[in-house]
């Protein structure tokens, strides 16, 4: 108790000391204010803050016009019924006096001009009777003596009252003529139910495109961002350390594995392609392959194993596993063919549902294109982790000296191979065509670097592999994230042509990098306790992620994904500016044509979509988070 009190006392005294004004502090504050003043003053200069233009009458008029147009989006229109009435008038009274005109037909709508003749530029009074009540329209002067003349001069807007009457002062144009001329009232009236304008239909079509563009980009982006987010999370990567031999061997494993995997999968494709067009074979394969894969996997990867299996069992399992995977790839190719065949069939037979066929066809095409790449990556990953394990084992088993020799050999080799690959990439990008810079130079540099690393590190030390991967991933993500989706869209428009697909690619790529960053920060902030508990059960890294990390990050992942979809909807509204599809194209067109009412309709559509996205996401969040 005593201790607590004295502790409090000290604290209060400290506070008193802090509060005592020191001249240095005042000077600091003054300098800070001065600095702020200078910064903002310069900011005003740079951004040309100037209200003078705003005061000019002309600008205000344009502004009002645009604002009014924006306030009346071109969404609904009515069938118009027009009442067109001409009445004769003489501009310059004829010398012979005004001829008596036939009295107007007073049963229908009619106009009376008083006086019936006047000099050009003089004002006459025009009265209208018996028009439809509460209608509006222009009152015009029709030159020449033809009442059907479509050329008109001057314009006054008139509006009838409840009894269908209006009166207006009309200035006669300077168009003197001996002949009779006319004044025409064109009063139009909305009839029937309102209907959507062409703009509304176009906007609807494009906003749907926009929403789906955003949906696809978000979906692809999310799928790829999730694995990236794990390797960009410090707390998961920090404990990952491996000995040099393991790193060197897994580095070697990647390119070799990718090459082998790609070749083998292409070979399997060669097996599958003769039956590509044969739907019965496709169907049979689709039944047999999954069954074989299931049993193969069940046998080769027993769910639970208490004792360590013998080497021969392990080898048999490995063989079965590889065969199973080959059957699996055969199945994938057959699936792709089947999907393409069914798609082609249903495109011709389904009529208005042909888009389902198109989807099947495109999905099949995607599968057949990415399967070899997938095979390469899978084999690369598998070989790399296998060789990494060999490295780990040898480090454990070998004596210090042999381990050192092992490290030196493989580290040099790995360095050389990695640098040569980078050199070849540079060659491909910049076409230097000088093997000294792109082949021999990197070879020697890489080998030397590997050698130095191997010599410097102690034989059995572990290196922070995880943190290296973490920093590389972070740098890569930050670099890509700084490129706006709009800029990416320009590149993709060149790659896949103008249209929504380019937008999907650009937004998808941007989604991957920005979501990966947001996600990884969520992974970094999970509770460490469950992670520890799952690790303590003997779970390996993958199991720890599946059972301790993923359950914790589902809620933030869902809400970030929804947020990202929201951003993507908004982004996809402008991605059209550079040809990336979506509503942006229409919006830009209408703004350039000064068709603000149509642009307003598109802006309304965007606002509605964004607002409903927000609502839907909050409902979903409440339900699942």
């Amino acid at each position, binding site marked *: 108790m005593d201790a607590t009190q004295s502790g409090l006392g000290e604290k209060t005294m400290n506070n008193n000391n802090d509060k005592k004004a020191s001249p240095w502090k005042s000077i600091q504050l003054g300098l800070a204010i001065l600095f702020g003043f200078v910064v903002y003053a310069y900011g005003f200069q740079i951004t040309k803050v100037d209200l003078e233009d705003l005061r000019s009458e002309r600008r205000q008029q344009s502004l009002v016009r645009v604002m009014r147009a924006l306030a009346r989006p071109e969404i609904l229109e009515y069938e118009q019924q027009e009442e067109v009435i001409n009445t004769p008038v003489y501009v310059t009274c004829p010398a012979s006096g005004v001829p008596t005109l036939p009295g107007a037909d007073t049963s229908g709508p009619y106009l009376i001009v008083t006086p019936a003749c006047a000099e050009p530029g003089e004002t006459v009074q025009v009265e209208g009777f018996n028009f439809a009540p509460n209608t509006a329209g222009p009152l015009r002067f029709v030159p020449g003596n033809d009442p059907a003349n479509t050329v008109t001069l001057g314009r006054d807007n008139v509006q009838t009252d409840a009894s269908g009457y209006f009166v207006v002062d009309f200035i006669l144009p300077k168009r003197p003529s001996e002949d009779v001329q006319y004044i025409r009232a064109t009063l139009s009236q909305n009839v029937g139910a309102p209907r959507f304008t062409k703009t509304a239909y176009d906007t609807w079509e494009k906003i749907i495109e926009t929403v789906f563009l955003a949906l696809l980009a978000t979906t692809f982006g999310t799928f790829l961002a999730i694995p990236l987010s794990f390797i960009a999370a410090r707390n998961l990567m920090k404990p990952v350390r491996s000995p040099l031999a393991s790193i060197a061997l897994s580095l070697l494993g990647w390119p070799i594995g990718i090459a082998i995997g790609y070749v083998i999968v292409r070979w399997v494709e060669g097996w599958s392609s003769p039956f590509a067009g044969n739907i019965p074979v496709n169907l049979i394969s689709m039944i047999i392959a999954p069954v074989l894969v299931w049993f193969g996997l069940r046998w080769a990867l027993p769910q639970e194993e208490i004792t*360590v299996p013998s080497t021969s069992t392990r080898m048999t399992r490995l063989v079965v596993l590889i065969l199973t995977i080959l059957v699996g790839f055969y199945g994938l190719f057959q699936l792709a063919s089947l999907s393409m065949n069914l798609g082609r069939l249903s495109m011709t037979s389904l009529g208005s549902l042909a888009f389902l066929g198109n989807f099947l066809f495109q999905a099949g095409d995607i599968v057949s294109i990415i399967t070899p790449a997938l095979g390469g990556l899978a084999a690369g990953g598998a070989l790399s982790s296998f060789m990494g394990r060999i490295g780990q084992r040898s480090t454990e088993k070998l004596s210090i000296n042999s381990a050192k020799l092992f490290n030196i050999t493989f580290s040099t080799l790995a360095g050389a191979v990695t640098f040569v690959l980078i050199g070849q990439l540079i060659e491909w990008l910049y076409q230097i065509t000088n093997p000294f810079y792109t082949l021999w130079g990197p070879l020697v540099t890489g080998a030397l670097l590997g050698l130095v690393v191997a010599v410097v590190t102690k034989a059995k030390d572990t290196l922070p592999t995880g943190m290296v991967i973490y920093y590389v991933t972070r740098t890569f993500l930050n670099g890509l994230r700084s490129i706006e989706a709009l800029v990416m869209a320009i590149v993709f428009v060149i790659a896949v042509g103008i249209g929504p697909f380019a937008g999907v690619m650009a937004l998808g790529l941007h989604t991957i990098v920005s979501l990966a960053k947001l996600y990884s920060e969520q992974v970094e902030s999970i509770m460490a306790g469950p992670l520890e508990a799952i690790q303590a059960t*003997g779970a390996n890294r993958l199991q720890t992620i*599946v059972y301790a990390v993923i359950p914790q990050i589902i809620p933030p992942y869902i809400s970030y994904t929804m947020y990202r979809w929201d951003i993507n909807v908004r982004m996809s509204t402008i991605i059209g500016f550079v040809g990336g599809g979506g509503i942006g194209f229409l919006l830009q067109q209408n703004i350039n044509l000064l068709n603000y009412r149509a642009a307003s309709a598109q802006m309304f559509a965007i606002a509605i979509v964004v607002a409903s996205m927000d609502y839907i996401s909050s409902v979903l969040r409440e339900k699942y988070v």
Partner: protein
Amino acid sequence: MLQIKNLTKIYDGGVKALENVSFDVPDGQFLAVIGLSGSGKSTLLRCINRLIEPTDGQILWNGEDITKASPEEMRRIRRKIGMVFQHFNLVHRSKVITNVLAGRLGYINPAWSFLNRFPKQDIQKAYQQMERVGIADKANHRADELSGGQQQRVGIARALMQDPQMILADEPVASLDPVLAHSIMKHLEDINEKDHVTVLCSLHFLDLVHRYADRVVALNQGQLVFEGLPSEIDDQKFKDIYGRDAERVG
């Protein structure tokens, strides 16, 4: 037999959490680890299953050196060592049954964990263990819907799923009220006596130590200051362990 030999842990900041700690634990013993907060109890327990890497020293378990084990050997060792935590460390958003089944992960082939599937016999076993600690009716509840005492029982069921030969309990009752504390301790005692599982349990209250422990080791600032029977802790020993100003309560 668990043998701790000259175990030292120095954290990155230079803090010495454990200094030259040595003691043996015969199989089947209920060992209490006592000491002030920050005396190194948690570090000691976590060094045994290498959640924390020891800086120096050896930990021999049935003759095998845990500190030298490769990642794969560590997996086999860890699955035989259950662990119970002060804050239960359940995965809140997962079901109770999933939390209990997680105890089986050391035995399951990692390739299958993507599918979130466990063998049938494991699921049966999970229900048996939940029955044993009295939470079978909560199997399909989310873990964070349970009260503290129930959550700790889930933690014990998870440890039991490992078929452990040893349980490390890191202040298992420090977040619970006295009644619940006894019920949890009784479960540990039951496991110790019926299944002959070695239990290493860090505790704060001496009455619990007297009631449940076969033997006590005490740490003070990372050093072993007492090793013996609970009844041997007299006033002088107490002051050695907890400092001169400490007063006995309870």
